């Protein structure tokens, strides 16, 4: 038997926007197994969160990840609110949905763009990121920031959005939908794209379930799991269905993201149509006490917060389980048996977010 070779993939690699190392054990050109080596982006944020008070933490938590920052602070705020028995007003709940879905759209466009870049389709990468800029503009118009919004606070949101601005968001969505209609057939029907994606990195439903896949990775393998159907924030009053594909390959994962882009457009339109008027946050004087688990659906899957308070300003413990952390065991299952040339595409197809994972 030929001796296996070990090739390091990363931490600095053209397809990886973030540093993670995968040690690929190779038999000729075929990957036998992959060993993840992490720790390049570890900051120790959970410990830092215990040293700051729970109001400051809302903004610190956003810095876990710059891509899904709003949903991080939303999940944290929901946890603290349930500990203190607060119910945010309905308008705040709807605004939270709108910003969450804008975040999901920009994240999915980013991920699909990076995927296109990873198989060398640079033109499509540029076009998708051009579309993404419309959404960034909408976020900037409504919150004042492009990436780290800082609008979610405990008890509601910090900033109200006027009716004219909501109308301009709807206008933006029309532009975005028109551009998506142009780009998505290229992504989904192009012969060379299908050659790189179809049948690559297959994840069985059973393996996905056993290894605890979440988000688009799980849904592309046929697991209908979407936390938005549980109805947190205002999702209970909106029409949300999990987008499920059954093939479990890179193409299915991309297709799930594309369908979710259209779904997000629909959800934002529903939310803007139904948004009630009223206050945007509730005052409070209590301190968080007790322990709670809070979950939400991020662009990459389910995020889980464990929070423990002791009646003081500081939290006793804050623990985050992020979607990419849950998706690393499934991606190792996908990598076993694939070609070396497909490793980049497979890793990018789960939309890895290393700074979430390592915090």
């Amino acid at each position, binding site marked *: 038997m030929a001796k296996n070779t070990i090739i390091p993939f990363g931490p600095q690699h*053209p397809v990886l926007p973030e540093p993670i190392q995968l040690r690929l054990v190779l038999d000729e050109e075929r990957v036998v197994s992959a060993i993840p080596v992490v720790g*390049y*982006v570890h*900051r120790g944020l959970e410990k*830092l969160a215990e040293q700051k008070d729970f109001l400051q933490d809302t903004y610190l938590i956003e810095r876990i990840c710059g*891509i899904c920052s709003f949903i991080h602070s939303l999940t944290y705020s929901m946890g603290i609110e349930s500990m203190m028995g607060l119910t945010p007003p309905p308008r705040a709940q709807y605004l939270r949905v709108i910003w969450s879905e804008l975040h999901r759209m920009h994240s999915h466009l*980013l991920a699909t763009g990076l995927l296109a870049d990873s198989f060398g389709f640079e033109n499509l990468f540029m076009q998708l990121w*051009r579309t993404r800029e419309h959404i960034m503009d909408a976020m900037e118009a409504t919150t004042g920031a492009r*990436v*780290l919004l800082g609008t979610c606070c405990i008890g509601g949101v910090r900033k109200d959005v006027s009716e004219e601005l909501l109308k301009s968001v709807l206008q933006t969505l029309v532009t975005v939908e028109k551009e998506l209609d142009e780009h998505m057939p290229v992504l989904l029907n192009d012969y060379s794209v299908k050659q790189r994606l179809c049948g690559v990195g297959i994840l069985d439903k059973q393996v996905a379930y056993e290894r605890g896949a979440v988000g688009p990775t799980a849904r592309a393998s046929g697991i209908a799991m979407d936390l938005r159907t549980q109805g947190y924030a205002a999702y209970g009053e909106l029409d949300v269905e999990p987008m499920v594909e059954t093939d479990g390959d890179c193409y299915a994962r991309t297709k799930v993201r594309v369908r979710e882009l259209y779904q997000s457009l629909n959800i934002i339109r529903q939310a803007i149509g139904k948004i009630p008027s009223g206050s945007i946050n509730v005052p409070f004087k209590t301190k968080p006490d007790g322990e709670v688990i809070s979950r939400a659906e991020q662009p990459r899957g389910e995020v889980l917060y464990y929070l423990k308070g002791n009646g003081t300003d500081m939290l006793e413990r804050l623990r985050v389980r992020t979607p990419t952390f849950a998706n690393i065991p499934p991606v190792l299952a996908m990598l076993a048996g694939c070609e070396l040339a497909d490793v980049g595409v497979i890793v990018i197809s789960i939309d890895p977010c290393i700074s979430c994972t390592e915090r």
Partner: protein
Amino acid sequence: MFNAVSKSPWVVHFNCNSCNGCDIEFLACLTPHYDVERFGILHIGNPKHADVLVVTGSVNNRNARVLQNVYNQIPDPKVVVAMGVCTSSGGVFAGCYNILGNVDLVIPVDVFVPGCPPRPEAMIDGIVKAVGILERKRKGEIFPTAPKPLCKFKPSEEQSAEKTAIKEEKTV
């Protein structure tokens, strides 16, 4: 041939310890809306082809060596642009147990771009400044490294000991 270096500087990007905020804003600079390619700037993955190193985030024990390796592989003349406030002081993460601190502990930095995250316009300005410095370095003018924004965070004794250890290693 040397003239081409400053006319079309190629950029390699290394994410040190960043939260992704700066990274996606830097990638946004490359795409049609902001389009740094009009300055001839091209983003590539190989440090051996690059003239400009873009760093985001602060340094920790694990990635300091990787950052140094990437820097050493870039051929001279080279410039370093540090994006975001984390690169100059550790930013919001200053004081975390795993943060050594600013990037210029490990490699010399030519331009700091402040902000959390900086706007793409600020990043483009930083890169264009760096291209000017690259031109002067190419002509042989020695250019001082950038003045660092003031840092309020004072590292603990253990951390400063680690920092001096890194500096010593660098001088050896």
